[in-house]
């Protein structure tokens, strides 16, 4: 790297974000499928297909951002034969996850045809979605040079925000259509409940992460350094838009036990999607300054 450059830049950010979203969408899609696949079929089909597309995009980004993309297979071969790198332990998980997402999406073209086989791949998808959602955090956690990333909480923070962003996408799918909005009122109420719980857990995990970082200077840098948009993205994008706004909105909806107006829900779901991205932007760039 030449002086002043970031070794992990936009492609890594894209990969972290799309895998987080893909994992979240897969988790929600499969859970809906296990709950009542006939009733939620339109939502499941869209979320699992979107998850598969995002996973493929993530995998392609991961390969393209390498200095020598044509040698990407070396990493897989080495992992299977020698397994020397902690940071690439999650590579097979990403591959299994992507494969399961693509196969499940294919089965959802005609979901009633082979239910048992589809179920099998959905369970594989669900089981691989959790490590796939944790993957970006593990990659950063294992980078022993960067003190801001050095806590065991960071992978979970990435998983939770990925699921929250996926809730945002599924919510958008529902509220964009009046018929779906009316049909899935109970689902929206449930989603609000889970959003409140997840936001609370994510907020606590964020505080715990910042407290347990070995170097206070690295945390102060995250909170104060305006370049390259680390602190503003963290405060505005993650804390206010990503956690604060949705927490307020979903708490109101949770307390009222009815879904909010579509306009408010639209803002809530968009802010969840923005929040996950903002966390990744601020962590990736502020982390590389220390």
């Amino acid at each position, binding site marked *: 790297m030449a002086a002043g450059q*970031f070794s992990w830049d936009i492609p890594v950010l894209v990969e972290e974000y799309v895998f987080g979203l893909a994992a979240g969408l897969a988790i929600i899609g499969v859970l809906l499928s296990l709950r009542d696949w006939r009733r939620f079929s339109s939502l499941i089909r869209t979320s699992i297909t979107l998850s598969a597309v995002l996973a493929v995009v993530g995998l392609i980004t991961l390969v393209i951002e390498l200095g020598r993309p044509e*040698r990407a297979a070396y990493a897989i071969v080495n992992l299977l034969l020698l*397994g020397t*790198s*902690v940071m690439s332990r999650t590579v097979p998980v990403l591959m299994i996850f992507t494969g399961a997402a693509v196969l499940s999406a294919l089965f959802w073209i005609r979901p009633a045809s082979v239910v048992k086989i589809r179920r099998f791949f959905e369970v594989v998808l669900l089981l691989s979605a959790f490590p796939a959602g944790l993957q970006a955090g593990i990659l950063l*956690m*294992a980078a022993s*040079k960067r003190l801001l990333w050095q806590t065991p*909480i960071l992978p979970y923070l990435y998983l939770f925000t990925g699921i929250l962003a996926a809730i945002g996408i599924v919510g958008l799918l529902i509220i964009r259509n009046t018929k779906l909005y009316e049909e899935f009122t109970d689902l929206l109420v449930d989603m609000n409940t889970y959003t409140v719980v997840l936001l609370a857990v994510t907020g606590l995990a964020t505080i715990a992460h910042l407290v347990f970082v070995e170097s206070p200077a690295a945390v102060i840098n995250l909170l104060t350094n305006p370049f390259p948009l680390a602190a503003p993205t963290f405060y505005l994008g993650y804390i206010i838009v990503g956690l604060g706004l949705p927490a307020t909105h979903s708490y109101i909806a949770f307390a009222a036990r009815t879904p909010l107006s579509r306009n408010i829900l639209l803002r809530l779901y968009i802010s969840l999607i923005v929040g996950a991205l903002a966390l990744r932007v601020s962590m990736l760039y502020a982390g590389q300054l220390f």
Partner: protein
Amino acid sequence: MSLIPEKATQDRFGTYEEVARNSLAMLFDQDLCIGCRACQVACKRWNEREPLYEQAGRDPVAELGREIAKGKEGYAGAEIVSFTNPQNLEAHTWLTMKFDEFGDGETLQWLFTRVSCMHCVEAPCVYGCPTTALWKYPEGPVVVRTDLCIGCRNCIETCPFDVPRMNFELGVVEKCTLCADRISNKPIAVGSFKGDTYNPQFEIKNIFPYSSHNLLEPACVETCPTDALKWGPRNEIVRMAREKAQRIGGFLYGLEEAGGTNVIYVLKRPPEELGLPKVYKERPSTRTERLVSQFNALGLAGVLMLGVVGAVRWLGERKNRILKNNGKGK
């Protein structure tokens, strides 16, 4: 259970203790360095590195961010106004000498600090590399095998000394090899003559590889005119470093950093004043294993908590169902 498979541990390269005990090491003695940069030239020449004509690919926003985070490059937040040239490592510069000026009363003191790979006894970059392109040799060097490198830059993000650099033209990472090609070139000695005039045969024997007298030293060590760079078995180098540091009231760097390195510095000022990175003291594997076990424990606790919440909820619903059924029965 650890995420690190057994075969990935230090044992692949010889145990940590074996490498620490048996490997070769370099001593940089700041007290003797005159800043002639002969080592830089020797490094470029032996490794056929191109000269740096201009500073390439600077990102002003990232530089500004880094400046706010860590202060300007140089010591104690002071801007570089010295003769450090090249100012930092890059793909073709594997070694640079950092020039620092210190005002002491009315006198000016120059101190020259080696900036290059420290060749950790247990190298974090080796653990970060997904293709084993980075490899720790039992003799001491940590080498990038560029034919295996995929350019993922994991090593850049794991190296606490900020050493590996991306060569964007080749798409691979490059750094100092500790002249592995020289030090592994074990000299041979011709023994007794065995054959005859028509079929001459000599007994060839390898000289003991760890003898510092018979090995090719790294190019920078060989060229150093003041013996500020020394080369030898690590045990001996550690002993010399301790002795010299004690004698001049100096500071040691590399003895404990990242669990110990194969390049050890004797410095005249504290490392942080010379702009050397403050590095954790534990072995990288210990550090990573600790984080991974904490990560696993957190996950397990989360699953258990979810299980308990789920069980409580299920029991509650079951109780309600039974009560409801009993009510209906009545």
